[in-house]
């Protein structure tokens, strides 16, 4: 075969075919080796876990504090754990994972013992090394470990990461600071310029709940932030901590340009249950979007301020929009039955749709779940 006589396209096709065959064989090899590697790693992880847990359970966790552990036993145990730690990367990571897991799930004496063991085994250095890693997800992992180990000594490194270029690293740093920085845990609310996604907000909300804060700030001070995502986060925090002193600012927020912020603000006003807020919601109702109007009606149903009932009935009777009709009916259902009987016209004089939504909310089975 004289390949040199072949047209170029045939030679190219031949070359591509050869390359494809090589890549296929290579990929098959990778598939096989990947499997072997994963199985080996799982086996090693299990071995590491068994060995470490045996050692911890037998020599550490049965005591009230590290001081109670006899010196000889403690040294032997630390030497054993140290040798396990240096056995391989898998052993070291497993040890870190187990100790962090224990610290997260236990408090009191076990937590102190775990912390002491973590420090004595110099595992803290590995965690701090992750904080300085060039790879973003290792920095996130390091922050998680620092947070869960309640390592207050690392606070400077954590604060530095609060200015990281990667938003996931910054949010993880904020989460850690909520735990570690008792002086100003919410400092990030003044500095974050980038929009935080809903996920980031939920992540921080969860961190706030778990942080055991000694002092809860007035979140209303962040309602004026130029970062709308921080305003949304503040609103959720105000609702979570039932901060009634935020009411004046919340009502002012009903004029905000961002519909989503107004929507969240309406929800929070409903949750806080203030009667003056109910009247303010009625004032802004005509200017609002359809969805926000529905939300206002829902909020009025939550607040249940009797003077607002007439307004809700008016909306129920006058609207052709099914969403508003349903929201009004749901709101009315929150009020006392006597009031409903007094103010609502006779059911037979209502339109079919109106009768349907009233019956919907009177049906006890529709009260559960989503309806």
């Amino acid at each position, binding site marked *: *075969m004289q390949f040199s006589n*072949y*047209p170029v*396209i*045939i030679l190219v*096709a*031949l070359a*591509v*075919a050869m390359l*494809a*065959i090589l*890549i*296929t064989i290579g*990929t*098959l090899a*990778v*598939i*096989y080796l*990947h*499997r072997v590697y*994963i199985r080996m790693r799982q086996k090693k992880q299990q071995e590491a876990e068994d060995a470490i847990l045996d050692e911890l359970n037998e020599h550490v966790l049965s005591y009230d504090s590290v001081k109670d552990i006899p010196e000889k036993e403690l040294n032997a145990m630390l030497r054993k754990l140290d040798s396990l730690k240096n056995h391989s990367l898998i052993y070291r990571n497993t040890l870190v994972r187990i100790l962090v897991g224990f610290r997260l799930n236990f408090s009191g004496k076990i937590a102190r013992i775990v912390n002491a063991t973590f420090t004595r085994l110099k595992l803290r250095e590995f965690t701090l090394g992750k904080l300085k890693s060039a790879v973003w*997800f*290792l920095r*996130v*992992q390091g922050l*998680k470990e620092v947070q869960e180990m309640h390592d207050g000594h690392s606070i400077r490194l954590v604060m530095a990461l609060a200015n990281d270029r990667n938003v*996931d690293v910054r949010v993880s740093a904020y989460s850690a600071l909520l735990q570690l920085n008792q002086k100003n845990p919410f400092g990030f609310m003044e500095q974050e310029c980038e*929009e935080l*996604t*809903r*996920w980031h*907000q*939920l*992540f921080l*909300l*969860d961190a706030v709940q778990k942080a055991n804060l000694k002092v809860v700030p007035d979140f209303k001070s962040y309602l004026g932030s130029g970062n709308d995502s921080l305003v949304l986060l503040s609103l*959720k925090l105000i609702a979570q901590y039932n901060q009634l002193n935020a009411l004046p600012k919340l009502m002012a927020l009903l004029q905000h340009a961002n519909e989503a912020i107004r929507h969240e603000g309406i929800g929070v006003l409903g949750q806080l249950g203030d009667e003056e807020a109910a009247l303010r919601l009625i004032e802004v109702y005509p200017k609002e979007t359809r969805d926000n109007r529905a939300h206002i009606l829902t909020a009025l149903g939550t607040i249940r301020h009797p003077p607002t009932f007439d307004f809700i009935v008016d909306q129920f009777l006058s609207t052709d929009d*099914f*969403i508003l009709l*349903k929201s009004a*009916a749901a709101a009315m259902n929150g009020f006392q039955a006597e009031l409903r009987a007094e103010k609502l016209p006779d059911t037979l004089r209502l339109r079919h749709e109106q009768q*349907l*939504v009233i*019956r*919907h*909310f*009177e*049906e006890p*089975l*529709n009260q*559960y*779940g*989503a*309806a």
Partner: protein
Amino acid sequence: MEQLRYWAVFVFNYAVYYYSVVIMISYALLAVFSMLAIRKYRQRDRFINHNFLLSSPHLPGISVIAPAYNEGGVIRNGVHTLLSLSYPKFEVIIVNDGSTDDTLEQLVEEYELTEVDYAYHAQLVTRPVQRVFKSRNPAYARLVVIDKENGRSKADASNAGINAAAYPLFVCTDVDCILHKDTLIKMVRPFIEEKTRVIAAGAVIRISNSCEVRNGYMKKVKVPNQYLPLFQELEYIRAFLLGRMAWSRINGLMLVSGGLGMFDKEIVLKAGGYDHASLGEDMELISRMRVYMHDQKLKYKVRYIPESLCWTEVPATLNVFARQRTRWTKGLAQTLWIHKKVIFNPKYKILGLLTFPYWVLFEWLAPLLEFGGIVFFIWLIVSGQINWPYALVLLLFVYSFSVMITIISVLWDEITGMKYERKRDVFKLCLAALAEPFIYHPLVVFFALRGNFFFLTGKKLQWGEMTRTGFGGEHKKKTNHETVN
């Protein structure tokens, strides 16, 4: 005449060659983009803690909509699986689409259902809803069953479910699909992790044929024993992990499967819901949603996640396979025709300049060109014009590339979480990849041609019977809708 024939052969040869080269380059690019998308997802998944989401009261509620037509064999377990999903705020809406078997009776008995007054709002036009049921048992408070007149399509039933949905997001699935318990918590992530509004999200659908399923729950994933489902498994892996992940990366997706998709209800309603006249209603809906967002000048994304969250039974016999593939091609042609204004229209950005042209040129046109190529090849052999060494090189070129892409998809599947316990299952798949171009691919091409023929001639498809093994043994059912992937 001789010269004309010469030029026809010359042009056709080069046209087919370069067409193949362009397809191959596109597949190579898809492989790269999918790798990047999968890597990014896995990094976030591995290093960022998502467990707290399960207890968060701030997550958006989700309505799980599952149309059911003559699903008496699977309905009880199917609904149990859906009610067992892990998510803080969701409801399950089963739409009994005028079943002629005992689907509704089984639901009423199993879930202690009673008819209730329900504020059902027909925002999307469907066949009439006759009754709505809820359970007297608080354990099934999340369940809503809608009984409606048969609409002769899954689209009609899905639209009824959307009308009843109370939450801002909904998942559309089938009752006989087995969903992973973390389906909702994983699929909601694109909606809350992206800054740009996500209007739809999909995940990987796998094949449940030959898997061990007990009481509607997946116990052991196995590679299909029969050849037809085995080839389909390969095809699904390639389509989802290579194709859709890559398109998701560049926001060029045109399809979220009907077997499992999560949607933004507001946008679906504004776009008009599923088209019950379409044979590819899942693709058609995404196309229409995307066109709507462009027309409104709103930024959006359609996302896929590389997680195997749904297992469905695929046709194991040639008859049923034929009907499915013919309908898919007809549905594809329909969708492309309906939205033809998008093609090469810069107003629609990546949808118009890349996605739609790709689907027209490389998904719709490919079987036609391939058939033309085969006919031409036969003519060349008969007329003694074949250069056999060149022909064999070209055959090797196409074959080796095709196998390579498929094997790479299998590697992506392994990387995203080894679904098969045994190594031999994976290598069975790889062996099937060697045979696929000769055995399975010609079938796909043939039924695609058939689908195009039906589309061009306006011939209606006969539904007939479909045999499903289900979870508790074989049962035949008359069906008027299937999952379109």
